């Protein structure tokens, strides 16, 4: 049996108030449960996307690292260092946010990441084709990485929201509602008791009045 609420007077007013609260709690519980189910189904979709994005990144990175090692062997680490310093530029990508069931998830646009060979900025005389391949691989990896970051953040956001909602649903189901029920029952019993008491009192008074009359 759940505890009853403290500081509740056994009055009809209080009973009505509690019944109203009970109705509200049950309504909230139902709504939150629906929210939780919707979030979990959304979560499943995002997890699937996350798995795909993760394997994609790992596969692309592996290929890129392979080409990188070849470039290092062909051209030398120091040369590669210089070339890589020339190739840097500002990467600007737009981030928008989307709202899934009250969770803000990022949406990123990656149009400008993959460049043409001539846009990379290093000269062709001192470099070779392997460098181009490597740069292209890493650019493509970068696109996948941005995608992965987007999905990973959605997974995190939705997961924390699912947990929050779950906690609320459980709190309502196992604490708030039983407690209200117990209190309502307590008040009803108390009021019946009072009724019986006053009924008995009336009878007694009636009896004593009758006894007085007969004297």
């Amino acid at each position, binding site marked *: 049996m759940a505890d009853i609420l403290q500081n509740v007077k056994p009055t009809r007013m209080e009973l009505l108030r509690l019944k109203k609260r009970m109705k509200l709690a049950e309504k909230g519980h139902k709504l939150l449960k629906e929210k939780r189910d919707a979030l*979990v189904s959304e*979560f*499943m979709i995002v*997890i699937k996307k*996350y798995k795909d994005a993760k394997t994609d*990144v*790992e596969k692309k*990175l*592996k290929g*890129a*690292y392979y080409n*990188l*090692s070849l470039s*290092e062997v062909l051209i030398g*680490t120091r040369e*590669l*260092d210089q*070339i*890589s*310093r020339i*190739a*840097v*530029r*500002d*990467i*600007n*990508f*737009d*981030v928008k*946010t989307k709202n899934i069931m009250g969770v*803000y998830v*990022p949406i*990123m646009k990656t149009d400008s*990441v993959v*460049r043409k060979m001539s846009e*990379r900025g290093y000269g062709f005389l001192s470099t070779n084709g392997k*460098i181009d391949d*490597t*740069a292209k691989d*890493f*650019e493509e*990896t*970068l696109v996948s*990485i*941005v995608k*992965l*970051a987007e999905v*990973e*953040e959605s*997974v*995190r*956001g939705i*997961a924390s929201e*699912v*947990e929050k909602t779950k906690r609320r649903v459980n709190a309502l189901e196992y604490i708030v509602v039983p407690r209200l029920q117990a209190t309502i029952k307590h008040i009803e019993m108390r009021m019946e008791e009072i009724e019986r008491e006053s009924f008995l009192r009336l009878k007694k008074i009636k009896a004593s009045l009758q006894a007085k009359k007969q004297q």
Partner: protein
Amino acid sequence: MEIALIGDIHTVHGFRLAGVRKAFLTDEIKGKAAREKIKGLFNDGIGILMVTERGYQELKDELEEANKFKKGIMPIILEIPDVKGPLSDKIDPMRELIKRTVGFEIA
């Protein structure tokens, strides 16, 4: 939004070739001033911070602290495998998260 990288020399070379300007070596960042450096990165308008798995383990405390105090959802810290491939004995935090949220493991 920009992309930044903390990693070993090979990762730095590779992603510089792809155009990532803010590519730093783990050795450059770690040490006494690691906290300030990472904080500086976080306040620099970076959208994604890639960290190699090995680098993440070295800078774990600083990164997690900075991550806790960031404003909004940016930057997103993303662990990537380095040249030697993914760490095999690592517990995937995402896997744990999924397990905790859904209640069972999804293959």
